[in-house]
């Protein structure tokens, strides 16, 4: 496995010194994200998110399956992450690296365990049929902060997603095609967003948001906080590294909350724009007898 090339000692010192002088190499503030770009695909449930040069594509899909025996009333919801060599030569197919394990655990905790998606609404026939929702996360380009980007992409994809409408009559389950009935959105309860802090310095006193890959390589600790706009923490993980003052972590959390609210507003706006675009003319347009020909 080709190891990730590490920055040289000089390079590290340069970045660190700059940070100590309150200066980031790309001129951002410490608590500033890189420009966020979000584009939805033509299909429902495809979201392409980019924070600067980090680019992640998430695609949600649904199929009808049998629910797990121990949870007959719940649907199946899975998030699959794949870090392919496309993003970085250090990633190998079929061999999860530590980064991948931690990323998938974080998404799992943030989105799935926090109950963002109402899995009970995915149940079609108790114990027999349910929807299986799957989100595939593909890292297209890796320039640091995969976690925040991936989380945003997953949430965006799921909120954009429409599953085929169904009905159950007399024990017969009917799944309608989009032509028959307009697909319906998922029953979505809240939108959690990850905010990752990177810490620098001997005592972790410098905290930086949205680290680039170089910054990520030289950080001494990191802490990912997942929140929704209601001010609920869904998950926090500071998995070791240089210890950081408890008070600093509390401050990080409150800043993270404002960021999560910003993300929430941004996503709502983008979703509204997309809906508008898909629905030009609205109901009246569909009723018109003329067409473009």
């Amino acid at each position, binding site marked *: 496995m080709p190891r990730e090339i590490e920055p040289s000692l000089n390079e590290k010192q340069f970045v660190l010194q700059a940070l100590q002088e309150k200066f980031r190499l790309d001129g951002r503030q410490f608590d500033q994200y890189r420009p966020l770009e979000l584009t939805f695909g033509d299909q429902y449930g495809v979201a392409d998110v980019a924070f600067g040069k980090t680019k992640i594509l998430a695609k949600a899909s649904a199929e009808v399956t049998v629910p797990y025996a121990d949870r007959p009333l719940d649907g199946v919801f899975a998030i699959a992450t794949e870090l392919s060599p496309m993003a970085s030569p250090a990633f190998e197919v079929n061999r999860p690296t530590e980064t991948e394990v931690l990323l998938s655990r974080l998404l799992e905790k943030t989105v799935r365990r926090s109950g963002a998606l109402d899995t009970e609404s995915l149940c079609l026939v108790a114990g027999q049929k349910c929807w299986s929702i799957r989100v595939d996360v593909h890292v297209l380009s890796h320039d640091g902060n995969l976690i925040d980007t991936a989380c945003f992409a997953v949430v965006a994809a799921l909120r954009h997603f429409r599953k085929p409408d169904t009905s159950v009559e007399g024990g017969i389950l009917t799944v309608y095609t989009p032509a028959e009935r307009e697909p319906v959105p998922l029953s979505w309860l809240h939108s959690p967003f990850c905010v990752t802090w990177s810490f620098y310095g*001997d*005592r972790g006193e410098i905290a930086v948001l949205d680290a680039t890959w170089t910054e990520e390589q030289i950080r001494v600790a990191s802490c990912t906080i997942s929140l929704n706009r209601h001010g609920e923490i869904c998950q926090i993980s500071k998995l070791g590294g240089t210890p950081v*003052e*408890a*008070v600093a972590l*509390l401050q990080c959390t409150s800043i993270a909350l404002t960021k999560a609210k910003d993300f929430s507003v941004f996503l709502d706006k983008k979703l509204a724009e997309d809906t508008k675009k898909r629905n030009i003319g609205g109901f009246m347009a569909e009723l018109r007898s003329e067409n473009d020909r």
Partner: protein
Amino acid sequence: MPVTILAPKAMRQDYGQADKQNISDDSDDADSSNGGAELDYAELAKADAEGHTHKRPRIAGGDFEIVTPGEVITDDPQWMRGHGTYVAAGTTSIISSVAGTITRTNKLLSVRPLRARYTPEVGDLVVGRIVEVQAKRWRVDVGATQLASLPLSAINLPGGILRKRTETDELQIRTFFAEGDLLVAEVQQLFQDGGAVLHTRSLKYGKLRNGMFVAVSGMGGGGGVVRSRRQVWTLEAASGGGPIDVVLGVNGYVWISKHVETPEGLVEKTSGITNLDESVSATMYSSQNDRIGPETMREIARIRGVVTALVDNGLRVDEDMVMRGYHEAVEMAMVSSVGADDIYLGGERGEQLAAVLTAV
């Protein structure tokens, strides 16, 4: 920046009214809420102003002076820090990084850990096991943090003590030492990173055979072998066991074997350098054991029992202790019903042995 973690607020007052019987609980809990997570802001703020490590009152264990990781040993800048300590950034206080006892050499303060891996020092006599054979050197496990290396050039080559090594020697490197072989050697030099280089360029050193290996903890604290004047000696075993060699490697590896005539002995007999070379080369790298009588084997096993009993009971292992322990063990066997064949020294018998040795 002072800590502003809020103390949990006082408990609710409303429940008591709901049920009058709870009033007694009420007062109880009021006491307990004092004991919890209320941080002493004033103290913390002060500590922050002074620097981050606030000096804590010495709680060290009375006369024994055990220090544990994170404990400030001294704030006095006149001391120098040695092994087992560190100086926190931006302060002068010397803080212990291991659990152990303080030692000092003039101005140097160091902490000797209760137990640690062996750290090689130049001149140490060690017993090691070959784990890897490379092109021009062997890698030897000596119980340290890294494998020691034994260069081909640092062994006695057969056919002449001071012979230059040749390519033929390189090709047949496994005929000298192969994986799993035990050897006794001396630490010749240390690398910067703590790795050791060994040599066996003396007739005292070399491959080990005709005996058994025992691993106990070595230097670094916590009982086991200690550095002493003599690490290798021959003893005359009781009840017809014949002479037995004991090699106490400083690294805690012990070798107990039947004594064979040393090459020095041969020198006297043959009185010729050339003959010596041949006789040495014949046996030096042999992997065949000589015939060992059952009595000798029994006594070797008894010495092994003594060594493990010493370690189990937290006593140091050196020549004096082993010899006294051995004589005691022989006596214990005499009075036992089985007689001289009773070599068991575990459990209660080991404790008994240790008690006798510490009593003196």
